[in-house]
């Protein structure tokens, strides 16, 4: 019987055995190959294939192992994976469970190294808050470790000059990129720690690629920062660049300029302190005088007290003047700029079409007034003429003739009688007077020529 000579496995049994052999023999391996089909599944895990000219092997990278560096991997990249072989019985397939990926290009390698070191130092507690030293508010002297020819030191000096010229700067020139940079930075930190007069240390540089910023990601720098007894501000690159130094340092500044702002109180803080104190002095001493004065009534008009008070006010005035001068000095720069803007604005305003509106308005107003005036004159002359005509017409009206004592004679039909020929004795006539009328009978008719005709 076949069964007796050979052990017959079930599929599960043989699979289980192969699984055991594979997994116990290859639980920790490094495999180099070219990536293909590298993309995340909906779960966030990455399934991909690693291959060379002749072979290929499936790989899986679980979501929890996915880092920023991993996301940069593209098909065709040559990588080295670290992990173990595992067999997946439902499909009868073996694959590498990947724990770490090493890119073979320099940037990728640096990125992974950054993550490795960050993870390691974080576990050691180098980033933890309880190790951070507070930054003093009024440091006297700051030690700066950066390049002597970079933008960082110039930015720091410029910022301090503006804010607080009392803070002294001591530059320890170091290389901030390349092989020896990290050692120099470490030396600078150690040197500043040996000096008694340095209150706070700034290490940093301007922006750059991950390779450029690399010295600030090196372990020896991180450890030197951690060991430092003096507070360290890390100011590397731009806002978005994070380095290991930033995590270990007592304070991270987004830029070297920001670091300078952190260490230097603006001068106005000092001014405020001096001013408040002198104010308090004045008030207290004046109150004291007042108090004494009340107690010793007789001294009320004594000149000594008056002079005391005078002296106080004079001294106080000196201080006011001083504060004013300093504030003026601080403002001068600002004002210069403001004036420039203002004068530009004035120029603009001067040439603005808006400015022409009042002029045009004037023109219109004058024109309008002139028109009204002319029209009124016109009306006035017309009404005078009308008045004259009215008077003339009135004078010529029968009414006015009657008013002057004349009368009009009408016949019985109401027609005016112009000559005597249409009348005979006994006719009734009506005489219209200015007020009222007379009815009379004709007694006698005498014909007479009109006087104008007689004259001819």
């Amino acid at each position, binding site marked *: 019987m076949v069964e007796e000579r050979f052990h017959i496995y079930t599929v599960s049994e043989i699979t289980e055995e192969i699984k055991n052999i594979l997994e116990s023999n290859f639980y920790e391996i490094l495999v180099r190959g070219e990536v293909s089909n590298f993309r995340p599944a909906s779960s966030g895990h990455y399934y991909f294939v690693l291959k060379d000219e002749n072979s290929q092997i499936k790989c899986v990278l679980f979501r929890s192992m996915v880092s920023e560096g991993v996301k940069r991997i593209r098909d065709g990249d040559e990588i080295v994976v670290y992990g173990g072989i595992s067999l997946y019985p439902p499909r009868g397939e073996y694959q590498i469970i990947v724990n770490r990926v090493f890119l073979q290009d320099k940037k990728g390698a640096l990125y992974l190294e950054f993550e490795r070191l960050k993870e390691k130092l974080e576990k050691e507690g180098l980033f933890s808050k309880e190790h951070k030293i507070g930054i003093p508010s*009024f440091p*006297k*002297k700051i030690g700066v470790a950066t*390049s*002597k*020819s*970079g*933008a960082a*030191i*110039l930015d720091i*000096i410029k910022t*301090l*000059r503006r804010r607080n*010229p*009392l*803070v*002294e*700067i*001591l*530059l*320890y*020139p170091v290389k*901030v*990129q390349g092989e020896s940079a990290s050692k120099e930075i470490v030396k600078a930190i150690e*040197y500043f720690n040996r000096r008694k007069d340095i209150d706070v240390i700034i290490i940093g*540089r*301007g922006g*750059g690629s991950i390779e*450029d910023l690399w010295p600030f990601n090196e372990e020896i720098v991180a450890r030197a920062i951690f060991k430092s007894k003096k507070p360290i501000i890390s100011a590397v690159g731009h806002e978005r660049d994070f380095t290991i130094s930033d995590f270990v340092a007592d304070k991270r500044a987004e830029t070297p300029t920001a670091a300078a702002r952190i260490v230097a109180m603006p*001068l106005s803080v*000092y*001014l405020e*302190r*001096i001013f*408040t*104190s*002198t104010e*308090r*002095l*004045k*008030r*207290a*001493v004046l*109150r*004291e*005088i007042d*108090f*004494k004065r009340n107690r010793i009534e007789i001294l009320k008009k004594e000149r000594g007290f008056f002079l*005391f008070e005078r*002296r*106080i006010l004079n*001294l*106080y005035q*000196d*201080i006011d003047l*001083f*504060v004013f*001068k*300093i504030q003026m*000095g601080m403002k001068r720069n600002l004002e210069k700029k403001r004036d420039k803007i203002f004068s530009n604005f004035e120029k603009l305003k001067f040439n603005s079409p808006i400015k022409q509106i009042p002029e045009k308005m004037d023109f219109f107003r004058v024109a309008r007034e002139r028109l009204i005036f002319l029209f009124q004159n016109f009306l006035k002359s017309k009404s005078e003429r009308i008045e004259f005509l009215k008077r003339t017409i009135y004078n010529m009206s029968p009414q006015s003739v009657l008013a002057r004592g004349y009368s009009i004679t009408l016949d019985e039909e109401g027609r005016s009688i112009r000559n005597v020929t249409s009348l005979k004795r006994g006719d009734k006539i009506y005489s219209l007077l200015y007020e009222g009328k007379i009815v009379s009978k004709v007694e006698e008719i005498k014909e007479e020529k009109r006087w104008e005709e007689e004259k001819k």
Partner: protein
Amino acid sequence: MGRGKKVNFKNFEEELEKLEKYAKMLEEGNLPLDEAMKIFEDGMKVAKECLKTLKEAEQRVKMLIEEEGELKEVDFPFEGGGKDEF
């Protein structure tokens, strides 16, 4: 940079504290008038001194250079140097 008057910052801070102490002393009162006047005048002197310091302060920027194996402080060539390289 680094020319001009030397500003002793430590003294400045100390003087400032002295000034604040004077103010407190006077506010607490109970002093004979001439003593109060003296403190007041001293305080005003200190205030003036502090203000003068602020007004005349010039940033001191020093740079370390190695000379025969030893570090020496020299003035930082702020106006002269400064090509933007890292």
